[in-house]
């Protein structure tokens, strides 16, 4: 791979500026640059082979001094993978195969290869506002040089040189940034609590457990912007007075683990992590910890006990991790995207950030659009965007002539929002009022081919399987609720049982120890609120209107033995 590596330590803002200038100069020697997406989705359809083929092709043509091919990040529209972009021509090629590379190379500076063109001016791209993912995939995620050339680590050195820790916290408070891990707790407020706590040792933890099924924003941000997440963590460490940090990533994300591990190493090598960062007062060491397949470990107290080497069992709060967290020390724990937002806030200022979004929900949010929707993928929009814009403008609506039924947000603790509420805006409060939840940003679209009772059962099965078992209502209650939903989908449910299901929802919601149990009833409550008729169809008429539990019009009760095929 053609790559430029620097060896020097960076010990001042001047050093950083020099490295950036040199890297830009080096990049400028090349007339043409091509980026091949090396995200998870693209790699799964062999974008690695496309990258290699492009490099060989350029070499064979003797053009290696004018064309530079780099691995890039996710373009967002992963469904069209593998994607290749040519920024100077403002072109995006989709579903590229190794056999296509000759044409692509020949077309550099010439006429584009029209049969591979992806419409990168359409609503999917133009209606987004990219703050966290602002490089739009045009950045080599493994190159610290490219990150620095793109302005990386400037925010960290600026904070260290020009801000007191207090100033940083104030800046965050002014920005209005709220936690992107789900609940939307004001980030500046959390930072100030940890900063105020007095202790010998404090920790910063990046929550990259992203357990919501159907959500992959954090994976993408970690894969594409590992340095930015680390930079955000370092700024946080400076603000709260921590010297040690952990990135807790789920083991199902091997690429993210690899990229973060490499990024830590290369930042350390260049003096941008470790002791005396940028030759200034901050010492900050970061380690990576792997999850091992337990959704509950995304809950902060469970995550902490997992880092300590034990089971991920949640603990009652208070005390909050900000007062007593990892090894009993004050601990700042934020989501990947929260940390990634810190860099643009410090770079561009809190006032700028606060202009994006709504009065109570500032900034942008990344979402993973998936399910029954034309443009699946990763998108970033200002908070306050309406669900309709998201699903029909950006997402392109529902494919194959089907009819939109609901959008599920907030993961297993979230809810299903129906057509009549599509004009609601995406922000913490509005989603909550609709019985759903911002969550980490999964947005799964369902059409008339989904049965909402079946969907509720799916989530309940998830919660029951992921319940840690520590507290009775969640351990036993989710199992009972799952069985009840299962009976309903088989036509064995009764109205009396439906009432019992509703009252169990109430018990589990209000008596469970942690957010998993407290949120587990939400998919049932929200489908009962908006799609009660589907429950009734199953219970009273023994039919499944969506044709999932049995073909449309057929009885969903299990046929008796004599009749069964």
């Amino acid at each position, binding site marked *: 791979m053609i790559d430029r590596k620097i060896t020097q330590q960076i010990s001042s803002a001047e050093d950083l500026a020099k490295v950036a200038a040199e890297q830009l100069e080096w990049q400028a020697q090349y007339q043409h640059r091509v980026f091949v997406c090396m995200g998870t989705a693209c790699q799964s359809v062999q974008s690695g082979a496309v990258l290699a083929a492009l490099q060989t092709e350029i070499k064979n043509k003797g053009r290696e001094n004018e064309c530079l091919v780099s691995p890039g990040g996710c373009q967002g529209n992963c469904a069209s993978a593998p994607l290749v972009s040519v920024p100077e021509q403002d072109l995006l090629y989709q579903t590229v195969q190794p056999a296509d590379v000759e044409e692509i190379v020949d077309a550099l500076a010439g006429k584009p290869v029209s049969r591979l063109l992806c419409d990168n001016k359409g609503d999917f791209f133009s209606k987004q506002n990219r703050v966290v993912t602002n490089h739009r995939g045009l950045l080599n995620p493994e190159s610290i040089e490219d990150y620095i050339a793109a302005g990386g680590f400037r925010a960290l050195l600026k904070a260290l040189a020009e801000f007191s820790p207090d100033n940083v916290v104030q800046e965050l408070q002014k920005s209005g940034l709220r936690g992107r891990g789900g609940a939307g707790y004001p980030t500046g407020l959390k930072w100030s609590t940890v900063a105020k706590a007095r202790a010998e040792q404090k920790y910063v933890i990046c929550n990259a457990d992203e357990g919501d099924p159907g959500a992959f924003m954090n994976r993408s941000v970690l894969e594409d912007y590992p340095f930015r997440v680390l930079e955000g963590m370092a700024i946080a460490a400076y603000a709260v007075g921590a010297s040690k940090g952990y990135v807790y990533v789920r083991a199902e994300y091997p690429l993210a683990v690899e990229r973060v591990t490499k990024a830590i190493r290369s930042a350390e090598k260049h003096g941008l992590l470790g002791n005396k960062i940028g030759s200034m007062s901050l010492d900050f060491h970061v380690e990576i910890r792997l999850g091992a397949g*337990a959704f509950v470990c995304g809950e902060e107290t469970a995550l902490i006990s997992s880092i300590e080497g034990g*089971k991920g069992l949640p*603990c*009652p709060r*208070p005390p909050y991790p900000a007062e007593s967290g990892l090894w009993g020390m004050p601990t700042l724990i934020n989501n990947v995207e929260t940390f990634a937002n810190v860099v643009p806030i410090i770079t561009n200022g809190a006032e700028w950030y606060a202009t994006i979004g709504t009065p109570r929900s500032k900034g942008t949010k990344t979402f993973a659009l998936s399910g029954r929707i034309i443009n699946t993928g990763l998108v970033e929009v200002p908070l306050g965007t309406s669900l309709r814009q998201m699903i029909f403008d950006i997402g392109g609506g529902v494919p194959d002539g089907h009819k939109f039924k609901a959008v599920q947000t907030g993961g297993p603790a979230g809810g299903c929002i129906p057509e009549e509420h599509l004009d609601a805006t995406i922000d913490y409060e509005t989603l909550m009022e609709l019985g759903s939840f911002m969550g980490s940003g999964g947005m799964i679209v369902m059409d008339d081919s989904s049965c909402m009772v079946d969907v509720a059962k799916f989530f309940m099965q998830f919660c*029951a*399987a*992921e*319940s*840690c*078992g*520590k*507290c*009775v*209502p969640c*351990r*036993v*209650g*989710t*199992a*009972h609720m799952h*069985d009840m939903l299962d009976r309903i989908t088989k036509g064995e449910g009764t109205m009396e049982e439906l009432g*019992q299901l509703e*009252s*169990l929802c109430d*018990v589990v919601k*209000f*008596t*469970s*120890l942690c957010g998993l149990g407290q949120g587990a009833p939400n998919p049932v409550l929200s489908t009962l609120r908006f799609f009660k008729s589907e429950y009734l169809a199953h219970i009273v008429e023994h039919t499944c209107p969506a044709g999932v539990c049995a073909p449309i019009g057929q009885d969903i009760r299990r046929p008796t033995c004599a009749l069964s095929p």
Partner: protein
Amino acid sequence: MRVVTLKINDQEMSGREDEDILHVAREHGIEIPTLCQLDGISEWGGCRLCLVEIEGSAKLSAACVTKVSEGMVVNTESERLSGYRKTIVEMLFTEGNHICSVCVSNNNCELQDMSSDLKIDHISLPYRYPARTVDASHDLFIFDANRCILCTRCVRVCDQVEGAHTWDIAGRGIQSQLISDLHQPWGESDSCTSCGKCVEACPTGALFEKGKAAGEMVKDPKFLVYLADMKAEKS
């Protein structure tokens, strides 16, 4: 340690700020139902029976793990709370297999007492009838998983008081089960000292002495408090 004043069920009282609601209430004669809590070992917060309402908070709080604070107004009894408690106890009955009449702990069982205190006259949730086993490999004791409510009192007492850590919970969620060592028969456990503390600490008929007939097993875990006090005195 600062002393704070608070109100529990309209009664004014005071407590140290490092005390939890449960103990301050108890000192003043107010009983809050508990199952996983046991004096002399750490708190767990898992059974959720001790949930109480605190004025100004939308959430319910577990009294055994919530510290008192100045001006706190607590309510330990309400229709809503007793409804929740009943359902939770029903959940415990349906989770295992309990046949009181043949149980060694009949009439001396905290789970049974709880159901009569809460006036539970019938179980409306469906029984789950899990397939569970009885481990009689130990010379002195028997573990009957059918009656285990996963309160972890045995786990904690064995770890924190005896220092053996023979027990732990394997699996998670509804699949959770109590195991000894590497899921070996209790009698083959190298860590167990046969001290019997777990048996005394167990609130139900899940752990009992060999040779007891129905209704004969009476437990008394009060010694744990003396041990804890002695430990505190020494350090």
